[in-house]
């Protein structure tokens, strides 16, 4: 069963590159991804550039509307995601609790729809 872990946090709570806390913080992410791989639970995962780089696109009446900025303006933004493959929600919640920024951000756990098999 696949779940997406959608990682949201306030970027100002995150250690910034160059700060003393940044190195150890990145190590936590590497260790977390490695643990997912080792457990055979990793499907994929990516970290995203900040919302200042986001562009939104909508098609309305055949017309393409392109706008600068994220879908929703808020302090908490989606910073990345994992897709994991585990047996059930309890296991997914267990991995979600170990996401390094879960201590100050929020992890939304969403089951992925399985269309066939």
């Amino acid at each position: 069963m696949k779940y997406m872990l959608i990682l949201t946090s306030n970027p100002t709570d995150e250690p910034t590159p160059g700060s003393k806390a940044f190195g150890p913080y990145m190590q936590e992410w590497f260790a977390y991804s490695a643990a997912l791989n080792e457990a055979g639970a990793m499907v994929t995962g990516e970290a995203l550039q900040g919302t200042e780089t986001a562009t939104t696109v909508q098609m309305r009446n055949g017309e393409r509307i392109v706008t600068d900025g994220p879908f929703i303006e808020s302090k908490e933004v989606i910073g990345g995601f994992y897709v994991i493959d585990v047996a059930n929600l309890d296991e997914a919640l267990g991995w979600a609790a170990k996401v390094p920024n879960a201590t100050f951000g929020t992890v939304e756990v969403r089951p992925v729809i399985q269309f066939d098999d």
Partner: protein
Amino acid sequence: MQQQAGIAEIFRTEWFGLVATLVRDIGDLGLTEDSAQDAFIEATVNWPTHGSPDRPGAWLLTTARRKAIDRVRRNARFAQRLPQLLEAVTVNGPETDAAPTGPLDEQLALLVGCCHPALAPESQVALTLRSVAGLSTAQIARAFLVSEATMTRRLTRAKTKIREARIPFVLPDLDALSDRLPAVCNVISSIFTEGHTSTDASSLIRGDLCDEAIWLAEVLTTLVPDDPEVAGLHALFLLTDARRATRVDDDGIPVLLADQDRARWDQRTIACGLSEITRAHALRRAGPFQLQAAIAALHATAPSFDQTDWRSVLRLYDVMLGWQPTAVLALNRAIAVRHVDGPIAALRAVDAIPEADDLRGDLDQYPYFHATRGELLAELHQSADSAAAFDRAIAVCSNTAERAHLERRRRAVGG
């Protein structure tokens, strides 16, 4: 007729175990409940003509499994999962009685699954009453004063989430189980509280819900015999429920603890409650339910209201506030202060609650807060302030029986 009574009795004793075993095999709670229901319907038709089977539980399980297979074949939603389901049902099927887990483990897995934190609290309560206690959707809707359509939607939404997000109905390991038990206790406790003091009904007590909650707590003590908080929960219910007959008068109006006829308290239930709290204490890990039970025990064993060991009651509230700093607890503590240090100290304690930043909860919408102030002010001969406090209590009270009591008190203080 006797046959019908027999089936009702068997429903009571077999439903939980039947659902627990089926959900282990099938994995789908909605399908499980429907199939269990089918099996009981077939029993009401079949048993009166063919006689009851020797082992009704086994008969029901076999029938429910057959019904599950029928339903799977008929329902397109299950079509792609048919092979797995058939395998699940036949592997653990009617012929083999060897279960991978014991029946008690299955039942605990079902109860813990119904109280999964990924489900909304009101859904946890509804699912527990449906899947574990076997109440119908209509009965649960009536108990919580919502329409049957609303309750059906609530249960359907919960079962959909269980299926789509794959909430497991498996027994967590010991560590995880101890994390999950408080949620189970809270669900059962909220069922008892709703029965004990209904929020919106015209009557103060709905015994049916109290009975369900006591039954659930008793079941939980069988499933988890060595958890002190589970024992404390059971003790709390028994010690509180022993006073049920004296909590309202013949007109259904609440009778305060001070005025209740202690001779009519159920001594056998009190004795059971005391033995549960003793058992909990022997397990040597204190907790909020045990403390509440200890307070209930002090009340249940006091020869009179005035001879209650208020100092111990006060001490227990102090400990409890350390764990759960809530405004409601602080209010109850203030009532104990009244009996230890007098009304002036108690009023000071009550009035300090809304200002305290460290207490959770807003008491302004809580009728007991204003009623307690009203009683203390009346005792201090401040009639006008007392009357105003009772007016506020009446304004925010949604329970008809309680409001009648408050209005009676309001007339008595004049002002």
